[in-house]
């Protein structure tokens, strides 16, 4: 039983897309880099089958500020990769609003739980960030995304989801930030990655240089 549960959790961590968001409407400063380590856990539920599965994720990220309002970056998951960007279009006082698109590809191997397949995902998040102080900033926003599942055995399926996130960014010294976050989404069309919803809570650690 324990083996099965661990296997399910581990496999989902391998196969799941960027279920976490860790976005901010404040781009990385122009000419600067920011590395991040993201990890979290949660649960997903399939409405049709009633299956509830524990899940987890881990990712390494790297972002680069291009201008005061734009950054680009990549995130590397265990078997997946995302390209992301932040484009700030509102900056008034302590408030920022941005568009944060993301493209992901996940490659799963043939295992006891995953198929030999590609999973392609695209998502757009609109983070709204309030900077309370030099130490604290709070971000939240909606997200819309879609995905396609392409297995080796043939055919494809797709899905679209709506989601949201809330995170807090706490500055630790000059170069480090700690970012706890909760996020969730619900698949509204199709069955990728499932016919249901997902909720996660996690922690990000950022390092600027």
């Amino acid at each position: 039983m324990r083996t099965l549960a661990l296997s399910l959790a581990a496999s989902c961590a391998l196969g799941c897309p960027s279920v976490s968001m860790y976005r901010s409407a404040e781009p990385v400063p122009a000419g600067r880099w920011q590395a991040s380590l993201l990890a979290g856990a949660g649960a997903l539920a399939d409405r049709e089958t009633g299956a509830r599965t524990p899940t987890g994720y881990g990712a390494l990220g790297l972002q680069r500020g291009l201008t005061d309002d734009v950054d680009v970056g990549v995130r590397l998951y265990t078997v997946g990769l995302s390209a992301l960007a932040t484009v700030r279009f509102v900056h008034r006082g302590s408030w920022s609003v941005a568009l944060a698109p993301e493209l992901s590809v996940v490659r799963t191997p043939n295992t006891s739980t995953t198929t030999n397949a590609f999973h392609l995902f695209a998502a757009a998040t609109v983070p709204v960030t309030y900077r309370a102080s030099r130490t604290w900033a709070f971000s939240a926003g909606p997200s819309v995304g879609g995905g396609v599942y392409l297995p080796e055995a043939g055919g494809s399926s797709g899905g679209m989801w709506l989601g949201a996130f809330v995170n807090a960014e706490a500055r630790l010294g000059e170069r480090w930030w700690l970012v706890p976050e909760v996020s969730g989404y619900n698949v509204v069309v199709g069955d990728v990655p499932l016919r249901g919803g997902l909720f996660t809570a996690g922690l990000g650690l950022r390092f600027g240089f």
Partner: protein
Amino acid sequence: MRSSFTLLAALALLAADVGCLTTLDPCSRAAPGASLECPIEGVFDRAFSIRVPARWDGVAALPVIVALHGGGGNRRSAESVTCPSGAPGEPGCLSAVAAAAGYALVLPDGTGLRPLRNVRSWNAGGGRDGWQCVSRGACQSNVDDLDFFDRLLAAVARVVPVDRRRVFVTGLSNGGAMSHRLACERPDVVAAIAAVGGTNQHAVAGGRCNARVPVLQVHGVDDPCWGYETRTATCAFLEEGRKVGVDDTLAAWRTLNGCGATARDEALPDAAPDGTRALRRTWAGCAAPVVHLRVDGGGHTWPGGHQYLDVDTVGRVSRDFNASEEIVRFFDANPRP
């Protein structure tokens, strides 16, 4: 800007490194000894493996055994669970036993869960009047696995010539229950079935069984996942409801197959000191045979096969006999008239 270019170049390289997906090509005519992985036209994300006997002449119609995986498994586990140490290719695996007897072995995929797409199941029936829907994914989604079976056989027939009098179905657990359902609903196609650790949930939950089909039922008395007697039994954390027991399932088949009330019991040799003993019960006077291999001390396992989970979870594997050999002998003796 140069740094950004470097970042994008790194991204492109990483994307390339993720690797290209190779989709399965449609299988053409197989040669003797071939081992192929084949897609099924018009079927999403479900393929089958086929093992063709080496001593086939490449021309004659082949008898076919369709082996169905258990709930949560896939076509690979359907093969490995029958192997003594879980490694396909070993002597004693169903694939080896079937090949030696001249059968093509077909191992299809059930329907995958979401998002764990290789955790698969069959819609073997149940889901009403307190009977467990087995297994949950495919059954809850009401997958049409009868249509899938028809498409599967059509796809197999494009790979090897099929001896229509000798199409047999076997499987463990959910695959065993699906074997019963196919016997009930495709008696014009299925010559005989051998179910291991899975019974006729389809019939007990109101499904019809349309004609006589020879049945071999292999079941462990200490099976914690699919109880020997009708009761709630499960070793997966999502399952609820009763599963029909061996006696009820075989009583229904005895009635349908026209068996008499008497049976002949034969104890199999206690060949291994593994805490199990096996008894073969053969009912007399049947128009189509009903045979039961009762494994005292046996669990939710394939006798002679792999201890795929620990004994506390699924019970013991009996080493007193090899279920694959018993099954192939039973199929040898029961072609369609």
